[in-house]
């Protein structure tokens, strides 16, 4: 196997560094070094754990001190009052913190439209409440807790070395966890939540569960770090533990390093801790704080993405990717001519569906069946409920009443990600790609969460297949911002198709395209049907409706108004009158 300079050298350095740090106590350096390095490990662990939820999924928490503090006081209380051995309290501190986070998450993540600042402030408020409770109950009582009588296990020759090695182990564990999450399904889902949570849910990401899992994991690490830190500080106080500077430093370190990258917070934490320490040891502790403050202002203004992502972008720019060999194919695979034999099997059954928004009746008792393999056009004047119908079938809105079944299973009240996994995929009228993911990553995500379980390689192949199918070859590594509207609409299609849907809901894929692009898109829709998908599409462009549909359903004022073969329905005077007014209907 060839040695790659870009991949293997950093790996080698990392392994060497980990080994060197692990055996550092054997060098019997003055305790000063161990304690300085411990502080770096401490901040690396805290900021990396914070980024698991707040960096990856974008829910900024200002409550990290609460989880850290729960760990500190779990250990303080259990070791001093119940004489539990110190090491046994570390997992308990983690568990208590995780429990608290899961509890908070279970309440606040249920709120629809949970705004970022709201989450930040709620978690901050929780910190103050917990601090007050600890202060006023026998857990602390206001006097602080002395840890000096608590025996430390003799892992190493000295006390500082023992704490050093515990902090180091925690730090490695945290960074490895962050790396693992970033490369696992969980991380993929969290990144999607960061970019557009509604779309992530519609593509099959169980957003509620993922957020709680990330929050609990993040808190558990903070709790364990707190447990170890209780032994480091020796004297635990409420004011020192639930300090406002903990969440703020954690946020600043992560943002400085790059909170969306698994290694970003570690870099930021190392830089800031080292800087602060340099000033403290130079006798300029106070001035050092100010200089760190200034550096952060400059960094946030000029490097808003953080050090690591900016460095990666810079490296990429220096080594431009080889020019794509295959030019973007415009012609899609030729579809077999119609008609495809329609089966009589019902795929979707919509019965008495109503949807009310306050006083507005958007859908008012719609009954409709979609047969397997057909293309059903959904038309109607603006405000007639077409997009609302797409939104209730895909689970974006819960039903007010009625039932919807897909392939025999009732989905009317299921969360959107479960409906997606039952084989329902949709596109958005205004494309909503995940903006920080490349075209390939966008499509791969939808294949991962929407489709059947497959290996990584299979998912990649599948994604590449649909990228080629929609004529986006050569754009795999482009971010959505680099696509034009036409291409973004096709990316919407590629994402929907990668989930291998039984039912495909298309919301105005043709709007905004020029006549040539429309022809292209019509061909594409035919080709999709030839693959065996059933299609329901909302469209205003009558040419496309007539050319594509097997049947047309007309909605008006939230009710099914007419249903039948395209040409007959569109000639029906009643249909003409709702579109153009009564005088044209004669």
């Amino acid at each position: 196997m060839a040695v790659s300079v870009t991949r293997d050298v950093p790996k080698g350095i990392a392994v060497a560094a980990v080994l060197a740090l692990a055996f550092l106590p054997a060098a019997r350096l003055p305790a000063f070094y161990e304690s300085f390095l411990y502080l770096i490990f401490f901040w690396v662990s805290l900021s990396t754990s914070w980024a698991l939820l707040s960096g990856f999924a974008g829910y900024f928490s200002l409550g990290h001190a609460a989880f850290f503090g729960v760990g500190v006081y779990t250990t303080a209380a259990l070791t001093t009052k119940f004489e539990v051995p110190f090491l046994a309290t570390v997992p308990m501190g983690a568990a208590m913190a995780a429990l608290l986070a899961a509890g908070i998450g279970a309440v606040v993540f249920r709120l629809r439209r949970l705004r970022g600042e709201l989450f930040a402030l709620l978690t901050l408020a929780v910190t103050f409440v917990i601090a007050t409770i600890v202060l006023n109950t026998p857990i602390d009582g206001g006097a602080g807790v002395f840890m000096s009588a608590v025996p430390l296990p003799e892992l190493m020759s000295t006390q500082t070395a023992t704490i050093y090695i515990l902090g180091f182990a925690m730090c490695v564990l945290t960074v490895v966890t962050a790396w693992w999450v970033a490369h696992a399904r969980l991380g993929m889902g969290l990144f999607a939540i960061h970019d557009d949570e509604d779309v992530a849910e519609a593509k099959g990401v169980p957003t509620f569960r993922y957020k709680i899992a990330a929050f609990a994991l993040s808190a558990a690490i903070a709790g364990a770090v707190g447990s170890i830190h209780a032994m480091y500080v020796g004297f635990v106080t409420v004011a020192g533990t639930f300090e406002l500077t903990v969440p703020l430093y954690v946020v600043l370190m992560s943002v400085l390093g790059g909170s969306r990258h698994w290694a970003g917070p570690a870099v930021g934490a190392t830089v800031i801790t080292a800087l602060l320490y340099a000033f403290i040891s130079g006798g300029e502790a106070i001035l050092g704080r100010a200089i760190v403050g200034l550096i952060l202002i400059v960094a946030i203004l000029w490097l808003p993405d953080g050090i690591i992502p900016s460095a990666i972008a810079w490296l990429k720019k220096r080594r431009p990717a080889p020019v794509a060999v295959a030019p973007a194919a415009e012609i899609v695979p030729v579809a077999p001519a119609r008609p495809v034999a329609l089966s009589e099997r019902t795929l979707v059954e919509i019965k008495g569906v109503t949807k009310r928004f306050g006083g507005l009746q958007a859908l008012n008792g719609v009954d409709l069946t979609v047969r397997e393999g057909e293309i059903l056009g959904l038309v109607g004047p603006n405000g007639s409920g077409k997009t609302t119908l797409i939104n209730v079938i895909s689970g974006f809105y819960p039903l007010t009443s009625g039932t919807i079944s897909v392939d025999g299973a009732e989905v009317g009240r299921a969360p959107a990600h479960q409906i997606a996994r039952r084989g329902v995929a949709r596109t958005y009228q205004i494309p909503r790609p995940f903006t920080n993911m490349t075209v390939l990553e966008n499509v791969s995500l939808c294949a991962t969460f929407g489709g059947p379980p497959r290996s990584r390689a299979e998912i990649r192949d599948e994604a590449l297949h649909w990228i080629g199918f929609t004529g986006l070859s050569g754009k795999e590594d482009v971010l959505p911002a680099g696509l034009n509207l036409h291409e973004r609409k096709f990316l919407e299609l590629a994402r929907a198709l990668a989930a291998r849907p039984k039912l495909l809901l298309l919301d105005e894929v043709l709007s905004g395209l020029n006549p040539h692009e429309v022809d292209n898109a019509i061909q594409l829709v035919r080709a999709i049907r030839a693959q065996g998908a059933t299609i329901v599409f909302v469209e205003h462009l009558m040419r496309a409706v007539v050319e594509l549909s097997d049947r047309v359903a007309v909605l008006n004022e939230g009710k099914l108004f007419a249903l039948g073969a395209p040409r007959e329905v569109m000639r029906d005077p009643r249909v003409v009158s709702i579109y153009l007014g009564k005088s044209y209907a004669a």
Partner: protein
Amino acid sequence: MPSATLLGQALISGVLAGGMYGLLALGLSLSWGLLRLVNLSHFALAFLAAYLTYELGTTYHVAPWWSAMVVVPAMFLIGLAQHWLFDRFKVNELASLLITFSFAVVLEVGIQLYWTADYRRFETHYSALSIKVGAFYIPVLELVLCLVAGVLAWGTWLWLRRTYVGKALRAAAEDAEIAAAYGIDHRKLAYLLSGMGAAYAGVAGTFIALIATLAPAQIWAWLGVVFAVVIIGRLGNPLGALLAGMLIGASESLAMAVFAPAWAPVVSFSVLIVILLWDPEWL
């Protein structure tokens, strides 16, 4: 259970102390609600103003109301300078929080280097004055503070509601692009508002100098509760901020009288959590 007199006194002291929360919340609420900038350095600016008032008062024997004539406009200018930075870099809500935190740290260090970390107290002959009404004592300084806060809050509220500039500001807060399309120069208005927010911090600082004991670390002491007040009073609503401040002040004071002083912080944050969970659209 404490006596009725004690509870009544606690209620009065609480409402008056809440006036300070309200006054500090005023500027924060405006910039957060109408400019979408979370300004953590608001507290540092208030303390800078307080230290300047203290310095002018103790070293040069300038009366605080004369100091305010210099200090408040100076804060207004600092607000403009800060906003230039936000405007130049198109700073969003979250980045504004981080930047102003850093700025507050820098100011805190500056204060500590000049005035040291020692506690400072600006003694005046009127600091302990109080009026006796029935069985209750009303401290004069706090009463004046509440009146000033009331005038500022009411005036700002009227200004936002009744004048063209105020309406333009609220329109720009909802959708800056559309507002710009209708000829509203929201950037100029944003400067004005940022300056005003900082000037309000200056007013608060004048009273902090007279009422509180000054220490650099005290900058952070009110942060939590004032943020709770800003949210409970609804962002961008000056009257709401003042009323919420008094509500929280009163409930804290009652909690102190009925339970124990240390339980006070739970009150504001529990109120906040309940409100936000009850109506997430509150913010």
